[in-house]
């Protein structure tokens, strides 16, 4: 049995211009104390139900800050954020979050980490839900291990399972594979796509890896730094389910080149 079925009942995101966006920010600015330039400056963005959006940009472009606004961890200095048309007031179990690293609770077993959300929401049989999700990410064997005894890739899979356990319609991912080696990273990307194909949540995926963004997303939002703004958006046309071979297609290479050109200019700007 699969938990997140909501996305499936929605129309195909590319045709659904008139449905309520799942997530929306309107003129959102986030400034930090003691810094001249806003980390996020007057950004507006709508994300349709079931859509997979990658936020891509050099470090310092405010992509993680924007994700924290979506997650409700940070209130915007000005502007508005909406979830399903309702103003966002703080973190909620409607948005599962996968962090870059070190976010599993070290004092709970793998199974209890995943069961934490269902317990808080008072769902039936939290451990059953957790077992099922661990099965989905291929980690049933280590259910009773401590997180610290797992490899980085395994820990991130547990992180994904934990975020999915509350059956959230939205999955927010903050450079989840940034700390992994290249091989593990490639495997995790395929794993994520297969989970997404099964559950179809709305995904916002923050990354600085251009190929990762194009390979995973329906839409790549490229951000620029100082101040953090949206530079350009790209619709990614490849059919799903996608396999790594898609990276050899001319259209993929063309997108990669075009995005790399923008990022290079932006990275140099914040480098100097």
């Amino acid at each position: 049995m699969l938990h997140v079925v909501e996305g499936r009942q929605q129309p195909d995101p590319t045709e659904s211009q008139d449905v309520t966006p799942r997530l929306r920010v309107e003129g959102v600015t986030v400034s930090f104390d003691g810094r001249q330039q806003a980390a996020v400056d007057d950004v507006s963005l709508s994300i349709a139900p079931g859509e997979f959006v990658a936020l891509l940009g050099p470090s310092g472009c405010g992509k993680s800050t924007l994700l924290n606004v979506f997650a409700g961890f940070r209130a915007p200095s000005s502007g508005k954020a909406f979830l399903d048309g309702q103003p966002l007031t703080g973190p909620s179990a409607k948005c599962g979050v996968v962090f870059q690293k070190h976010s599993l609770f070290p004092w709970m077993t793998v199974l209890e980490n995943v069961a934490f959300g269902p317990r808080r929401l008072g769902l039936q049989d939290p451990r059953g839900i957790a077992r099922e999700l661990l099965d989905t990410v291929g980690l049933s064997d280590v259910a009773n291990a401590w997180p610290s005894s797992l490899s980085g890739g395994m820990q991130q899979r547990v992180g994904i399972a934990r975020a999915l356990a509350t059956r959230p319609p939205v999955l927010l991912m903050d450079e989840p594979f940034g700390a992994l080696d290249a091989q593990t990273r490639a495997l995790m990307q395929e794993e994520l796509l297969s989970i997404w194909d099964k559950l179809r949540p709305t995904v916002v995926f923050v990354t600085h890896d251009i190929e990762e963004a194009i390979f995973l997303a329906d839409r790549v939002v490229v951000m620029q730094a100082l101040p953090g703004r949206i530079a350009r958006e790209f619709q990614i046309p490849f059919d799903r389910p996608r396999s790594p071979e898609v990276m050899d297609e001319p259209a993929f290479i063309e997108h990669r080149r075009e995005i790399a050109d923008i990022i290079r200019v932006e990275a140099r700007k914040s480098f100097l």
Partner: protein
Amino acid sequence: MTPTRKLIAKIGSVGTALALGTAGLAIFLIIWTLASARLGNAVLLPSPLSVFETYGELISDGSLAGDVRASLVRVIAGFLMAASVAVPLALILAYSRILRGLVMPLIALIRPIPPIAWIPLAILWMGLGDPPSYFITSVAAFFPIFLNAFAGGTSLQQEHVNAARSLGAGPGALLVKVMLPSALPMIVTGSRIGLGQAWMAVVTAELIAAQSGLGYMIQVSRLSLETSRVLVGMTVIGLLGALMIGTLSIIERRVIVPWNYPR
């Protein structure tokens, strides 16, 4: 490595540690015996053998058990009182900036005062007997527990808080399910140090403010020049202290914070 080999290696290393420890103890006892034979004065330094005989006497007349019980009760009572105030206070102060600002300077001023300096006040307030000893042991145990628990409370990671909130945790669950377990390793470390401090302080308190217990027994035996009884008191304190802290370490690894010691 196969599990059996691992086990053999483990038993081997435990055996080596045990053999070395026993050898060290034996060498110490030999030096002690030689020194006391050379000195030839049982008041200045009785031999290990005569101390051993005194152990026999004090155990058979039941007085050692009584003194041990009196001291143990004081240590455990003082330790529990200290822990039940120190841990909640430390977590609350780690949570609230205003309370922290109010209380921390006071703590910084009181902390350097050694427990022994509290004895006159304790006797004035509470007279002789158990209460001043409880007070002194809790003063001694309080600061290590408090300071470690506070450090544990403030080292809480923002990622853990964010993760818990995005999984539907409210303020209560945050405190009990996230903040407390996250501080637990430090709380246990503080408790182990605090227990050691309380055990040292009880002897000090009993030397002056009590009429029972190991400290009192040492004091009385000193006055009657029964040095082998003094040494019985001292060695019992050493043995019991090591035993208590060792037990707490095992409980810590197996029960309280097993995730810090994955096997």
